[in-house]
């Protein structure tokens, strides 16, 4: 299978107002890759994701998604262009519950498939998501506002997987969940077949990623600090 660049970030700086969180960052992700992004709290993992989606306060630098430039080089209203980035093939599964409380689980999953092709194929895609998260099958007609944290997380990730995306950004999938459930969610993510697309998983708990991703990148004060194949030695080197 030919490897092509799904994401090419060059010289990305991003932040909120006077605060600069990401400094001059370069990153290339190839198709078929599953990349782990590790780093301490507040070192810019989520901001990198939000920056790619165009949701930060300001940002500079180039972001190429499937060869299309989606970076904005002026300060902007956060989210003003996000939908365009999404239509170029990005699926962002954000940290915390960014869900639509009033919609049912089914409608919610549908809402993840807003690109024309995904909308046409949404039945099969729903099938696929339900295979990954079988507990959702019983909850299809329930309003999302009534679900528990773990179920919400599943819905949120499921919504991301519904999209016809070439790049999945998964932000802290295990955050705030019981360890066992968190592991289950991660297992589900690992079981997704990527095909031509790529996935970046940001995680603080490196142990969960160990040996299950293609490579791991460390993040430290807004810069990438080396990379390695997933192993605990890497963790010790980065974290000290």
């Amino acid at each position, binding site marked *: 299978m030919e490897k092509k660049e799904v994401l090419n970030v060059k010289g990305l*700086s991003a*932040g909120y*107002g*006077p*605060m*600069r969180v990401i*400094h*001059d960052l370069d990153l290339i992700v190839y198709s078929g890759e599953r990349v782990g992004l590790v780093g301490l709290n507040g070192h810019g993992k989520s901001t990198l994701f939000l920056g790619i989606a165009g949701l930060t306060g*300001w940002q*500079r630098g180039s972001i190429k998604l499937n060869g299309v430039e989606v970076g904005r080089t002026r*300060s902007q209203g956060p989210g003003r262009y996000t939908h365009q980035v999404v239509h170029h093939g990005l699926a962002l599964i954000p940290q915390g519950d960014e869900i639509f409380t009033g919609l049912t689980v089914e409608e919610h999953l549908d809402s993840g498939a807003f690109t024309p092709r995904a909308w046409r194929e949404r039945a099969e895609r729903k099938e696929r998501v339900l295979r990954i998260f079988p507990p959702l099958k019983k909850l299809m007609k329930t309003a999302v506002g009534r679900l528990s944290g773990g179920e919400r997380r599943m819905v949120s990730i499921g919504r991301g997987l519904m999209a016809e995306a070439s790049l999945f950004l998964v932000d802290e999938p295990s955050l705030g969940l019981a360890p066992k459930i968190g592991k289950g969610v991660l297992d589900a993510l690992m079981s997704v077949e990527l095909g031509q697309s790529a996935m970046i998983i940001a995680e603080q708990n490196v142990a969960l990623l160990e040996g299950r991703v293609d490579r791991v990148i460390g993040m430290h*004060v*807004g810069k990438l600090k080396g990379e390695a194949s997933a192993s605990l030695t890497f963790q010790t080197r980065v974290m000290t």
Partner: protein
Amino acid sequence: MTATWKNPISAFDPEKPVEEVVTNDYLSPQSQWDAVRAYNVPTYEVGRLRYYHKWGGHGARLWSRLRYWPTRRRVLDISGEYNAKTLRRQKTIEDKRPIWWVLALLALAIVPFFIPENQQNALLTAGAVFGIYAAINLCWMLIIGTAGIYSLATYAVVGAAAYGTAYLSIHLGLPWWAMPLIGSIIGLVFGVIIAIPATRLEGFYYALLTLGLVELCRVYVLQSREFGSATGGLFGADSYIPQAWPQHDQLMLGYYAGLALMILALFLFRFVNGKRLGRVLRMAPEKREAFAEATGVNYRAARIQVFLISSLALGFIGGFYSTHFRGAAPNLFSFDTMLLSLSMLVIGGLGRSEGAVLGTLIVVFIDRVLVDWGPMRFVLIGTLMLLVVLFLRGGLFGIKEQFRAWRDKKKSENRSSRAEKGGEMLPEEATETPNKDIIYFRRFDKMQRDFLKKLITPELIEEHRKRPLGQHSEALERVLTYFRRQPLNDKYAITVIEPFKSYRIVALSGSRGVAPRLVEDKTYGTPDEAYHALFMRRVQDLLES
């Protein structure tokens, strides 16, 4: 290049001709320093630091003794200090707003004497209307701004008090001085009734409810025979303006009475918004109520208190309204009146007393004085409203603040998104570097490299090619000194493969025991050639850095 460099050593060998080389013009290293020090980011002179005018002499202690009776507040917030340079006493007015207020109110007080005669009636009548509306708007501002209750029932309270007192005055002969007092009782009762749902409802739902109340009042007044459904209003109440006076005196009295009412309302605003209640409520802004409650702030009680106090005041104004206009009309309750009043608050700026007064002044002037403009007035008011809402966050009086916030945002964004401020290090990296000398060294190094880049010219290279070793011109000497001073790791060196025949360029490893590594395949026939090739490599590195 006209400059030539004469080799000073030539003097020792008079037989040979003086060696002359074409070289660069002299460029002072100071020029680079100046260029770096010149601030390139666009900045604005205004307000980089808040500018305070310093007055001479002492006075801080004198001024702090003066208080506004009966408060403990100082008349002017003046601080005094010794100037460390001049060793003289000086004082600063920290808060100039009282001065502006006094000047503005003085201007309003003397303006009737400067009105041209052919404008007097219209302007004085409008002036009295302005005073009354400004007072109403100040009380409304307390409700919307300070208490954060979106009540549209302000005019219902005013109207109820106006109608009530007018009715009492007509039928029971209530004298004019009692009307505002009775009015405030009516206002308080009305306020209690309206305040009950305010504890339960929020935001737009409460606004709708109060809108409903206003509509109810309007409909009731239109239908009720006691309240003058037959005359389009209730007229004939006692007035504080003696009917026998000439018109001009009547208007003057009305104007000053309106002004006095506005000043009373300003004091009320100050005492509620600036004191305990206002501070409590500022601790509980919208959507943070739960947090405020958790810290022990009883914001509900404070809100209701503010609401009741302003209802009382609105009732007072209502009573005044009916003695001023000798009655009340249903249009007090109409949607248009409310809309116009809302535009006054918005144009001036929500939440501030000066905004309420200025907004009222502008809108009353357009609406009431420019009556010969016809429909253009409303277009003007509407456009003004639209522009204010679209571009200003806090009305006209928020402009300064908003401009500062915008400028600071832009400045900090520029500063933080620029990679090279201060040289080689990012601010975050710099804070994590324990040895601060490194930061300064890097900054100096960058500056030096920038300067040397300017010195690299074809002449210079040509000079080096001709004679890599020996005495050089000043410019080349500077460049070479910099190159030689570089640390050992990755420093270029020449290795002799075969003496006088074959030389190659290598890079030193910098650590003891580790062999240098080759950097290119090329071999050079003479040492000079090798020297020059090495020089070129370094120049290239310099230019690329």
